[in-house]
């Protein structure tokens, strides 16, 4: 095959790709309202994409940092996987704060987090809604140290769950200011009765 032929073919393949879509969209700085589940604002731009049952925000790609807003999860299901997938523990509306932490640990270990340690567990408010905040660290198999924050609220029989995880030596520190601002602005609106 000659070089020119190959180049032509590659260009054609690339054009086909161009017709498709990229995975990440730009999230401009503004006020956000995710289907009236989460209300928050950001002052900087992020990259965003949809994952299973979650909207993911990232600055440098999820290998290095990720902020997840999970769709409210009903009793008996996991925010991480469809019902049929057994390895993630189900959320239950009667969970105590320690059960929620245990639920978080088991869920994270099934996304390959090792040596999970909690630095703190604090009661917080998301607007009118009571919630718990867990600050934690873990290691990836490669031994890369990660740091994270989980906000969990049981509200209207569902689990509201926001999770931030980032590489600890640079990316966590570089982002924590912006993330804390987002979390401080976060509201879980009272359910509009339909």
């Amino acid at each position, binding site marked *: *095959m000659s*070089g*020119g032929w*190959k*180049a032509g073919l*590659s*260009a054609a393949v*690339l*054009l086909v*790709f*161009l017709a*498709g*879509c*990229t*995975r*990440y*969209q*730009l999230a401009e700085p503004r006020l956000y309202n995710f289907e009236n589940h989460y209300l928050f604002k950001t002052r900087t*731009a*992020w*990259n965003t994409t949809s994952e299973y049952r979650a909207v993911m925000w*990232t*600055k*440098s*790609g999820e*290998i*290095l940092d990720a902020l997840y807003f999970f769709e409210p999860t009903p009793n008996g299901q996991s925010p991480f996987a469809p019902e049929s997938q057994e390895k993630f523990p189900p959320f239950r509306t009667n969970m105590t704060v320690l059960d929620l932490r245990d639920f978080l640990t088991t869920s994270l270990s099934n996304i390959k987090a090792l040596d999970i340690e909690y630095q703190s567990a604090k009661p917080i408010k998301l607007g009118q809604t009571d919630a718990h905040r867990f600050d934690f660290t873990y290691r990836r198999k*490669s*031994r*890369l140290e990660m740091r994270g924050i989980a906000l969990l609220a049981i509200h209207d029989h569902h689990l509201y769950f926001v999770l931030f995880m980032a*590489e600890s*030596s*640079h*990316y966590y520190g*570089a982002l924590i200011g912006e993330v804390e601002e987002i979390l401080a602005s976060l509201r879980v609106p009272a359910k509009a009765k339909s």
Partner: protein
Amino acid sequence: MPCPRMSRFVLAMLGCILLAACETQHFLADPNLDLSRTNPAILVFPIDATLAELTAGGSLEINALWTQQAEGFADEALRKHLLGLGGKFVEIKSAHFDEASLAKVSHLVLMHSTVSAAISRHKYEWSEALPTHEGRFDWWLGQSGQAIIERTGARYGLFISVRDSYAGPGRVMLIVSASLLLGVYVPGGRQEGQASLVDLSDGRVVWFNRLSREAGDLRTSAGAEETVKTLLTGFPARKP
């Protein structure tokens, strides 16, 4: 899902494919950076090479002898090239590290491999491009490099890795027969390389290059010189 606008990166990619000239594609954090002005010492991390023979059926058989020789050839070629640019050369082998600074070195290496994976994904795969990173190159490895500056006096760290494969006799026979008798193209060996330069004072990746082609040969010293030269395309040092 809304479709985004075509990025500059894609246009550049398209352009160079049409010109059949994109064996390499590099990024610079600061387009004005020029190492030949300051001639800083550069710490060269051990070259990570893997050379393999491609069998008729497409298996890659790693060749330890070629690999060992290639590491020697590439090391030599790299030294020559950097000295030619006026840089000073520091080898990690000759540097002395105590346990604490050794831990910093492994942290830097681990960060480098993690961040390189992110760069490869988000800067080279167009469907994975991050909108906030468009038109800029902004990647960091943390503060561990400072311990290396203290120990070695080097200001920059250079990481090189190459995966190189060559069609073995069986594969060559298959390539020739398929092209002569069937007019079908069967791919031969490939060379895939990656090089990155890191500012050890703040951990920023200042230059990153990726090489991918069906050419190049690290089994000879002349071939290694050519490969190193190609791999250092766009290296931020302009000899006066």
